């Protein structure tokens, strides 16, 4: 095979030093700057969120002072204490996590330890479908279908435990379809996909050697999970749970529809209640002045709480992932 005729111009530079010393094209440097700017945008937005919302909330903080943590929120009487909502956020978040974590971790273990590889994908699809349902649709279903149905169950339990010391305080009347507990259940449904998927990622990084080692000693699957998988994935799963908690606390629309819109602090879980994002969503339209500033202030508090939880959770998840990879 003969070589076709050689190139036309000389490829041998007459002045090599000059030929090699080109300046970096403007477009190349510009592109780098543009990419950097987009990266910095993330940091800028986070900072701006903090400053702009705090500014709007300043009126509330200055008017109420320490009373921002008072336990009464009554716009008509000019009282804007945030405690009922902080309480509600904590309670519904706790309920959601307590319900979602065993289920999510169970599914994650099912997918990674039990199910043959071929079945794993369809199961993952189904779990991801949970995430496709928008928050507002969960709320719609919750208030129109689920709430009225579970109301009966609440009522039965409520009358059954009436008079029983601790149980009455928790599950006794008043009961209502729209309540702390209903909100907690719906939030649990909503955070299951993310806790499951993160837990799966964490559990999948457990080295096969450890798992096989346990099996080789004659362990049953449960024993292998407790002995080999759990110690490795403890940290990462904790991080995943924290992320789920943060998600549950911030979930707005479903909560706004099914929590019952009653700013009271009560131990009765089946009673109507309120939490931070729900009251902001429900009352913002008609609020003004200190009231509106207070709602935005609640937003600032929510932002602070979720950012802290997220930073801690991401730190834990990243660190356990790095440790697995042996970095």
């Amino acid at each position, binding site marked *: 095979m003969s070589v*076709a005729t050689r190139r036309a*111009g000389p*490829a041998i530079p007459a002045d*090599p*030093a000059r030929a090699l*010393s*080109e300046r970096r094209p403007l477009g190349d440097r510009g592109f780098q700057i543009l990419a950097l700017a987009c990266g910095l945008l993330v940091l800028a937005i986070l900072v701006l969120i903090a400053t702009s919302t705090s500014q709007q909330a300043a009126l509330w903080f200055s008017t109420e002072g320490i009373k921002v943590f008072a336990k009464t929120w009554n716009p008509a009487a000019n009282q804007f204490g945030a405690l009922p909502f902080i309480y509600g956020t904590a309670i519904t978040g706790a309920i959601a996590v307590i319900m979602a974590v065993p289920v999510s971790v169970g599914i994650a273990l099912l997918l990674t330890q039990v199910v043959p590889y071929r079945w794993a994908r369809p199961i993952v699809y189904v779990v991801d479908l949970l995430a496709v349902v928008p928050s507002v649709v969960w709320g719609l279903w919750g208030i129109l279908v689920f709430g009225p149905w579970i109301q009966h169950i609440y009522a039965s339990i409520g009358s059954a435990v009436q008079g029983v010391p601790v149980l009455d305080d928790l599950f006794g009347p008043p009961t209502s379809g729209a309540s702390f507990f209903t909100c907690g259940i719906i939030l649990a449904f909503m955070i299951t996909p993310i806790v499951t998927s993160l837990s799966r990622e964490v559990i999948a990084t457990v080295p096969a050697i450890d798992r096989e080692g346990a099996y080789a000693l004659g362990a049953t699957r449960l024993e292998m999970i407790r002995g080999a998988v759990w110690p490795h994935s403890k940290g990462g799963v904790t991080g995943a749970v924290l992320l789920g908690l943060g998600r549950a606390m911030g979930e707005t629309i479903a909560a706004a529809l099914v929590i019952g819109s009653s700013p009271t602090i009560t131990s009765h879980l089946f009673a109507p209640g309120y939490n931070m994002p729900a009251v902001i969503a429900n009352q913002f339209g008609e609020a003004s002045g200190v009231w509106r500033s207070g709602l935005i202030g609640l937003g600032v508090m929510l932002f602070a709480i979720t950012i802290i939880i997220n930073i801690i959770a991401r730190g834990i998840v990243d660190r356990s992932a790095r440790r697995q990879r042996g970095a």
Partner: protein
Amino acid sequence: MEQADQNTGNFSEPALQQVQTAQQEAQTARQQEYQKAEPAPGTHVFDTDNVSIFYGSFKAVTGVSLSVYENEITAFIGPSGCGKTTVLRTLNRMNDLVEGARVEGDVQYRGASLYASNVSPTAVRRRIGMVFQKPNPFPKSIYDNVAYGPRINGERNKGRLDEIVERSLRQAALWDEVKDRLKHSGLGLSGGQAQRLCIARTLAVEPDVVLMDEPCSALDPIATGAIEDLMKEIKSEYTIVIVTHNMQQATRVSDRTAFYSVLRDEKSDTRTGVLVEYGRTEQIFEDPADDRTKAYVTGRMG
């Protein structure tokens, strides 16, 4: 070996000295013959002067001084980890892509320093191309793979691009096999074809030099043979430097050979590459001057 001979006791000391002197004189005479028979080296394309390469604080290669001449095929051989690929990548500033890589000493390309502060690495790489160990065609069509280089260097004219693509594929001995499927994905080619595609891609920008990093190590013997033939064909128009761990390949294609080895530092347990010997290929393989070279080419090491 010499110790054992000495201990046979069949020869006296002075007689042994005489034999050794005679051996050395014969070798010097042979080397002078090699040098007389050797054509005067042509234009210097590369000159490295005591080059050392560092990754962070780790010294990967030390004290490399050699010259590469125009229109010759120069081979770098040696055991694994001796830095031959590192040195090769220094010649077109590909080591810049590794974090913490640093070059000390001077590398000159046709008299111009490659590592001067005002040198643009992209200008360097346009003139000094590289083919890699594992063929890496882009996930584009065969045509777009070859046309990629000229396009990013400004060529837009469809007619000229067609010409360049055909010429490069012919030079790479691939044209006849792919001329009817230029629009097909470059990923659908066999290993040997893919490597020739990468060679065509490199030739398409009309470089001065083609560096090859073990281009045949992922290929079967037939594909290897095709590429070796290709190298010998294009040698008259390009300067080629090839890293290979296959000594027979070095003897088959190269004009000069550089043998690298490893210096082990006991204290820090590190291994640093070093250039042991560099000369015409016949001399390196038939009559190596250094013992380490002799051990390697006769198969006792590496």
